[in-house]
């Protein structure tokens, strides 16, 4: 990472790098291509990511590398040296980068690079993964000197060398040991893990909450400007409802996503993730997943796509596929904005963490059930291995955390952001047209009637606003979008959804967050039958609309019943928790399983489960009296 200055991810856990990535760097006039490969334990690969590395080293995918730079962990000197010795059999020039020597030093077991170099006959340069120290030297060495092809060493010699160079520490009470005594303690371990995860969610939600309010304010202000500057018409509607709405919907999610990714990155960087996998391995295995599934599944809480890619660290193919197929059930960061808005609109703040946790837990429970079923039917047999190192606890490098957040933010803005914006614009188009003259004429008549009455200016303006709102709603009611929504709505009626929520769900398929701007367009308008609307209804007070959350609360159906209530909101969130709505994820599943069968299966089972879940929630809740009633 420091060599090229580009943003790779040196993380304290296996599976951080499952693909090759390349970068170019110019050192003293020479251009180097640096290839970062997934970590390797020996020349016999056990999982797909290791096969990638071996293939590249052997030159199976193109030219062989000119120099191998073996990054070794100083605290495991003897084991690492054995592997380095194995690597010499490839017959390529080598340099050794001695990493984590600072960690070894803290344990009283540091290694002298010069002495090591003398012993093994390979150039050794001390590096530190968390800082650029040593990297400059490494770069220069690669450019100036001609690294030689070293010869291998027999194992007894390696052990001897390691013993000589590395002070054998008595099992010291290091920080790592002491922390593990608590965090992995028999009775405390799992409760602490649950607390950590719960705390993370609560933090993300409460951290995100103020931002949602600010962005809504900013959006309101900007929309007000447009309203002042442009008269009523298609352009104003597009700017406010399509463009501003779309763009701000992208920004309102940013703080939450950044926070979630930062927290996961910090947790990864400390080394705690490995402990979590250690604690959960038995449970995961019971459900037909591997202990190694933990990292891919945990990553999927940020975004399922890197999680699915990370499944390459799983050696057993059936475990791997099971992991891939349930990864989308881990509520990804795209679902978070939907949860935040709906929880914020319909539930008290004190409940928010609990509901959020419940939604995430739902995904996990369903995933366990699906994996269990799969491993007993379509994916029967075989078991993967654990063989997992528990790294030393480290203070996570802020630089790495920042870079991970930046990468994720950038990807989100560009990939999800463009889809959300495009979807918002298309939804606007479908909701604005057609524009029959007949409806316009009807409301013009209302305006003429109003002009004839005697009112003071403030009252008159308020009535005019109401007429405008009603007119917009009447148009919306007969729009193309409304026709589509009403056609599909019967399928979702048992879940308590009205046609606008149905449209929102459909609009969420390209990108989950797109439901937010869609709601912004559809629900800011009431459900109004142009034919029945008359001047008399103007006496009812105008609701002060302050943001999407209050809009959702106040929205009404044709018959006057609320469009949404806490139960329907819950059913909707359950739908989102379980539904497969991300085309990119399905694409990743296709690539990783090399067939269309699994993405199709994933889409199918998740959509069915989502529908069943939403309907079940609404029907059961209705029986308990929380429904809309008739």
């Amino acid at each position, binding site marked *: 990472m420091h060599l090229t200055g580009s943003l790779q991810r040196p993380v304290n856990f296996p599976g951080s790098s499952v693909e090759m990535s390349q970068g170019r760097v110019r050192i003293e006039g020479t251009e180097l291509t640096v290839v970062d490969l997934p970590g390797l334990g020996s020349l016999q690969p056990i999982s797909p990511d290791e096969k990638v590395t071996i293939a590249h080293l052997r030159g199976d995918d193109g030219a062989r590398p000119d120099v191998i730079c073996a990054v070794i962990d100083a605290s495991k000197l003897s084991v690492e040296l054995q592997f380095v010795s194995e690597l010499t059999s490839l017959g390529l020039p080598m340099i050794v980068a001695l990493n984590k020597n600072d960690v070894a030093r803290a344990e009283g077991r540091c290694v002298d690079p010069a002495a090591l170099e003398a012993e093994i006959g390979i150039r050794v340069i001390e590096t530190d993964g968390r800082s650029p120290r040593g990297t400059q030297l490494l770069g220069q060495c690669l450019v100036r000197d001609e690294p030689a092809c070293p010869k291998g060493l027999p194992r007894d010699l390696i052990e001897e060398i390691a013993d000589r160079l590395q002070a054998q520490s008595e099992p010291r009470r290091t920080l790592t040991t002491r922390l593990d005594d608590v965090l992995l303690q028999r009775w405390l371990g799992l409760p602490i893990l649950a607390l950590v995860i719960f705390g993370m969610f609560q933090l993300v939600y409460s951290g995100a909450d103020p931002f949602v309010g600010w962005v809504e304010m900013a959006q309101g202000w900007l929309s007000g400007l447009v309203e002042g500057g442009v008269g009523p018409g298609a352009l104003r509607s597009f700017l406010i409802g399509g463009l501003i709405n779309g763009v701000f919907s992208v920004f309102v999610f940013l703080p939450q996503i950044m926070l979630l990714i930062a927290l996961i990155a910090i947790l990864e960087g400390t080394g705690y993730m490995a402990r979590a996998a250690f604690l959960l391995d038995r449970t995961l*295995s019971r459900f037909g997943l591997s202990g190694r599934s933990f990292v891919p599944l945990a990553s999927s809480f940020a975004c399922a796509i890197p999680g699915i890619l990370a499944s390459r660290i799983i050696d057993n193919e059936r475990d791997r596929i099971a992991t891939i197929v349930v990864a989308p059930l881990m509520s990804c960061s795209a679902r978070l904005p939907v949860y935040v808005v709906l929880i914020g609109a319909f539930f008290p703040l004190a409940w928010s963490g609990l509901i959020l946790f419940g939604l995430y837990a739902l995904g996990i429970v369903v995933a366990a059930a699906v994996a269990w079923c799969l491993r007993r039917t379509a994916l029967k047999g075989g078991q993967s291995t654990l063989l997992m190192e528990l790294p030393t606890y480290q203070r996570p490098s802020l630089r790495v955390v920042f870079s991970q957040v930046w990468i994720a933010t950038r990807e989100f803005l560009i990939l999800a952001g463009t889809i959300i914006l495009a979807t918002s614009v298309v939804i606007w188009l479908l909701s604005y047209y057609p524009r029959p003259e007949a409806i316009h004429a009807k409301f013009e008549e209302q305006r003429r009637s109003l002009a004839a009455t005697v009112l003071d200016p403030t009252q008159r303006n308020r009535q005019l606003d109401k007429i405008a709102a009603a007119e917009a709603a009447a148009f919306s009611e007969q729009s193309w979008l409304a026709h589509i929504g009403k056609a599909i709505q019967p399928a979702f009626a048992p879940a308590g959804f009205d046609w606008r929520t149905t449209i929102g769900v459909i609009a969420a398929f390209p990108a989950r967050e797109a439901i937010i701007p869609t709601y912004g367009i559809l629900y800011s308008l009431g459900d109004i039958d142009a034919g029945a609307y008359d001047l008399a209804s103007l006496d009812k007070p105008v609701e002060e609309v302050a943001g999407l959350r209050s809009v959702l609360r106040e929205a009404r159906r044709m018959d006057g019943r609320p469009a949404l209530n806490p139960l329907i909101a819950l059913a909707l969130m359950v739908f989102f928790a379980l539904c497969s709505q991300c085309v990119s994820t399905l694409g990743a599943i296709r690539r990783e399983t090399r067939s269309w069968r699994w993405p199709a299966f994933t889409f199918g089972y998740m959509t069915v489960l989502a529908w069943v879940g939403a309907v079940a929630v609404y029907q059961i809740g209705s029986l308990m009296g929380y429904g809309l009633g008739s």
Partner: protein
Amino acid sequence: MASQQTLDEVLPGCTICVVRVEGDDALSRRLTSLGFWPGTAVEVVRRAPFGDPTQFSLRGYRLALRRSEAVRVIVGQAAR
């Protein structure tokens, strides 16, 4: 010869010595490359809450193995 057992039978808190790794498949090769060489001292640190996996300490680092993996390592009392 000192009494021999498999690694999964050793109780937490004990330190024993590797005799050899059983088998000739990918798992045994991987165990070897992880540092389970004849004569290596291995400390059994702790078991996970449900009894599996187990944390070991060897060659300067910490490793988690399942019972099904540890059973491949034949161990005995330290010779030194």
